[in-house]
């Protein structure tokens, strides 16, 4: 089957359109999270999504729509725990993450009957994405990307030097809250693409790959976006051709691209050392 033949199917068109937007979203936000040393917040919030998806299934509502407000509350809880209760950031993420999983397990075991649906959210199924979810993904992705571009300088300044950012009159608490809320939305949208278990991979890996070779902050974001889009599109197509789980293929492609970028960096450094 040719690639163009794949594109005739509506479910593949929906998967690719939503996948491209979500990849763009994850990679752009991923660079900010990585540089603010908040990579693990994506992982923690993904675990909260497990609980919120269980809640959505129990209430017989679309888990994506139920998850967005619940995960946003989870992200605010992490920030408040770190700020007010003097809990270290990673400990706060660990606590809320464990709470999310515990709630999910309790709901799933007490209600019963939807364990198979819950399993599909754990490992993702981009090919099952509905039209309303595609529209939601596009609208939320554009909203999040516009927010990032509006606060771009503030994010960059706070990521590089928080104290200087504060002394420049930037409200860094507000910036942290915005970043956490954007991450919540992104994590919920991403669970459809790669699943709850692999969400943090799509946030972290394109950013780490870009950091190997990109020069400059904007270029890093562009490079991370390109890497993420290529991995999602190629991963979706390859998984269809060889009949493998899409989420896992996307993550493997991201790892291969990281290795290529890393090898290029090492070789380039060696060549430069030899010519000097």
């Amino acid at each position, binding site marked *: 089957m040719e690639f163009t033949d794949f594109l005739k199917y509506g479910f593949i068109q929906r998967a690719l359109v939503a996948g491209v937007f979500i990849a763009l979203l994850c990679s752009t936000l991923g660079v900010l999270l990585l*540089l603010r040393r908040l990579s693990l917040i994506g992982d923690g919030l993904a675990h909260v999504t497990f609980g919120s998806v269980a809640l959505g299934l129990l209430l017989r509502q679309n888990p994506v729509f139920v998850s967005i407000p619940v995960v946003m509350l989870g992200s605010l809880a992490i920030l408040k725990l770190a700020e007010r209760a003097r809990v270290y950031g990673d400990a706060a993420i660990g606590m809320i993450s464990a709470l999310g999983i515990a709630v999910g397990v309790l709901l799933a075991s007490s209600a019963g009957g939807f364990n198979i649906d819950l399993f599909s959210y754990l490992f993702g199924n981009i090919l099952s994405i509905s039209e309303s979810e595609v529209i939601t993904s596009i609208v939320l992705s554009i909203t999040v990307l516009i927010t990032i*571009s*509006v*606060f*771009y*300088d*503030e994010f*960059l*300044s706070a*990521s*590089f*030097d928080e*104290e*200087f*950012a*504060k*002394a*420049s*009159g*930037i409200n860094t608490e507000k910036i942290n809250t915005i970043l956490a809320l954007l991450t919540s939305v992104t994590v919920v949208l991403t669970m459809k693409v790669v699943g709850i278990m692999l969400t943090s991979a799509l946030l972290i890996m394109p950013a780490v790959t*870009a*950091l190997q070779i*990109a*020069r*400059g*902050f*904007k*270029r*890093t974001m562009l490079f991370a976006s390109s890497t993420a889009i290529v991995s999602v599109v190629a991963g979706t197509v390859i998984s269809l051709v060889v009949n493998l789980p899409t989420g896992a293929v996307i993550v493997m492609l991201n790892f291969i691209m990281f290795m290529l970028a890393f090898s290029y960096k090492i070789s380039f450094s060696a060549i430069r050392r030899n010519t000097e």
Partner: protein
Amino acid sequence: MPVDCLSVKKVSFRYNSVEVLSDISFSAVCGDYIGLVGPNGSGKTTLIKTILNLAKPSGGEVTLFGKNPAILNEWHRVGYLPQRIASLNPFFPATVDEIVALGLISRRKLSTPIFRSDKEAVERALKLMDIDDIKGNLIGALSGGQQQRVLLARAIVNEPDLLILDEPTTALDPETRDNFFHFLQELNWEKKMTIILVTHDIGSVGKYASKLLYLDKRIIFFGSFNEFCLSEDMSSYFGEFSQHLICHRHDYKRIG
């Protein structure tokens, strides 16, 4: 008539019931160059943080250009070079010109388009710090001295009225340090920039600063360097020998 750029009145600061600053009062007239010195743990950085609204004082009042820092919206008039160059992330992907442009944030409203005047301001700061030839380099790939120049360029890109530097020469070799002090003196003389320099190097700062503020949780001395050298109170505080050493080094260097 001289105008106060900064006024600190009866400021105190407590951290977990430990007194860090007690009854601090002084003012910086616009154009002053104040050397802020004192032993480790004397509250120098805490004082800077209360001035910049990074820490809330337990008592007293700070005014910057006649306004409480909590409601100040003219942060572009203040340049700041923080202490912690050692904690700079060496893998941060931003280039030198991107870092310097961050200093413009206090003047711009959110991510408004970058105007030609913004680009020119960045170019001017890069040239002034003699780092325009490395503007495309990654910040993490530079030496400690070059990084310090980049961060100073970021602090002065708005041509602020008040420049606050917290131990900027800690990571620098003696030659780069001397050049740095000379450059600050030029900014003070030629651009009429008010400077507050936190340093341990009391001898060097006496060579350049117009006033000396010696802090040890409270103000031990505030006045000109000559007044410091002639002060009998300082003789009894430091001991005549130590005071003589500081002042002798100062005179010796000035003549040299």
